[in-house]
């Protein structure tokens, strides 16, 4: 890909991001009822406080002006005050974000490292029992409601077998005295040389990560299988066989390298949909991340936070799709964007 094509593609992001922010803004602006009254709810506030809230939200100004103020503030990562937490929204979000990123990354890694070998095996042994089981498993994976599967895993591993914790990110007692260098517990515990805490954090993350990654595993497995079947029919694989290369070498070096192109780009796109799954999975497993915070915020009508989080998720999603496109063209030079 040439640099100008890259720039062009980058410029195309601008209308999309602008449109996304318009929609997020309109979502909030069209909320029926007076947002200030809704946010106050049953709390007792003085008229001065109410007027202050109205000013803070910019509700005394015209809609178009409010949008540009919102956009300007959003660009500076300023989303106003979270009345519920009595702190800036951005601060609350940043505090919860590492837990969500950590969960998402582990889910993605689990998905990649199970889906790719399974997909390759299914393709190599096409129409075998293993292939059929993998196909059925793939269908199950996309049909399972994540929230339910998570509860089943909890019942089995946390309640009946008592092997893994029911909720949270780490036991409070164990987490004491760990310096948060990165705010990713799996990394911080290792950096602090606290292997007991690492094991504890790992035990907490394993079930939510498996649940979150399951649909992605199913999808990636199918993509890898299809791509691998196609590659195995290609001339250069026949040529490699004719050269007398070993089967293993052909499979894992020649074929897989090319079969992974669609897998990698689908993985990048699917990582975006993990963001949505986060809200559900974090709720099921009591994971202290952004997803659960958003769900909780909806029920206490903490709208500035919901608005900021939806915008943040959308921007991350758009960027991930952008990188997926770029990655695809880098890996596959025949494709032109």
């Amino acid at each position, binding site marked *: 890909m040439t640099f100008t094509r890259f720039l062009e593609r980058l410029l195309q992001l601008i*209308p999309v991001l602008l449109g*996304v922010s318009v929609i997020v803004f309109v979502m909030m602006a069209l909320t029926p009822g007076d947002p200030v009254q809704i946010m106050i709810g049953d709390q007792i506030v003085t008229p001065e406080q109410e007027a202050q809230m109205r000013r803070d939200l910019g509700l005394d100004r015209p809609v178009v002006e409010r949008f540009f103020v919102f956009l300007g503030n959003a660009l500076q990562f300023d989303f106003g005050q979270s009345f519920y937490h009595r702190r800036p929204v951005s601060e609350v979000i940043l505090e919860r974000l590492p837990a969500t990123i950590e969960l998402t990354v582990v889910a993605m890694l689990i998905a990649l490292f199970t889906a790719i070998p399974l997909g390759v095996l299914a393709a190599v042994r096409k129409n075998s029992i293993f292939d059929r089981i993998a196909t059925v498993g793939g*269908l199950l994976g996309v049909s399972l*409601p994540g929230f339910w599967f998570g509860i089943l895993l909890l019942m089995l591993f946390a309640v009946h077998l008592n092997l893994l914790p029911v909720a949270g990110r780490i036991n409070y007692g164990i987490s004491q005295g760990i310096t948060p260098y990165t705010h990713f517990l799996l990394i911080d515990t290792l950096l602090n040389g606290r292997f007991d805490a690492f094991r504890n954090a790992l035990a907490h993350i394993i079930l939510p990560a498996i649940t979150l990654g399951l649909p992605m595993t199913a999808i990636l497995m199918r993509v890898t299988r299809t791509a691998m079947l196609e590659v195995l029919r290609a001339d250069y694989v026949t040529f490699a066989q004719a050269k007398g290369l070993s089967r293993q070498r052909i499979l894992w070096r020649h074929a897989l390298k090319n079969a992974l192109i669609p897998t990698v780009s689908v993985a990048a796109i699917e990582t975006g949909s993990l963001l949505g799954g986060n809200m559900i999975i974090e*709720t099921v497993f009591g994971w202290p991340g952004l997803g659960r915070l958003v769900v909780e915020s909806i029920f206490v009508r903490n709208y500035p936070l919901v608005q900021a989080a939806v915008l943040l998720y959308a921007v991350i*999603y758009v960027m991930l799709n952008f990188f997926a496109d770029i990655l695809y063209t880098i890996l596959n030079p025949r494709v032109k964007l």
Partner: protein
Amino acid sequence: MSVIEQSAPVAAESLFRRNMAAFVENRLAFGSAIVVVLFVLMAIFAPWIAPNDPYATNLFFRLQPPVWMEGGDRAYPLGADALGRCILSRIIYGARISIFIGAAVILVATTIGILAGLAAGYLRGWVDVVISRLVDILLGFPYLIFAIGLMAMMGPGLGNIILALAYKEWVIPCRVVRGETLVTRELEYVEAARALGASGKHIMLREILPNILSPVIVVATIRMAHVIILEASLSFLGLGVQPPTASWGAMVADGRAFILESWWVSTFPGLAILLLVLAINVASQGLRDAFDPRFTE
């Protein structure tokens, strides 16, 4: 005379029929389609099938285990929830919500998607630019987050769920229709219709649409499974249909508090979601293989 009579059965062997025959031959897919039909029948005839009133609470039967377990009661085949309501009856009634919302969202979204896709693909120009930009923007949202954001703003309720899901769902049929229309509009028979002076509306709805309908139907069935899971997810979070209305997602959520001792409260409604969604997925894959050979692996 006899020549005409003989040729009649040949004409009846339409593409649709041949595809349908291929679908029926795929036993797994056809069986799954029957499962889907059974779910629909269960939803329609819920009042006659359900053993109990799904809303009747009976605290004597609170968290009653299923019939085959110790302490089970034949009056409550799958046990009872925390309010002593019959789980089986609630699952049967819950099918109404899942299927109605799934069908309504797909119907609304497909109709809008077809109209927008035809307009974008056939008229091109600024119409295409506007619609395609809107599609790009809506694709910029992760689906569930978009729906959750909308539900948070609009408040829960049946109509709002349908709206919240349809707002984004139409994009998918729209892209399919636009793509197919772009190809079809260049074909000779469309050109012929144009040369005969047919109006744009006639060409879009009468010439192009019937010929691109099968991929649209295939996509609609595949998407229906997604929509049902999305609705269940919203209900699970408490953003969907409100209690006491029985909905599968909310029933799974109800059971979360009792996973220590009463596993059946969450397990059975979730199983119902899985069965219905799996059946739709398998059946739609069979439909796809029969009707759209391009997609076959």
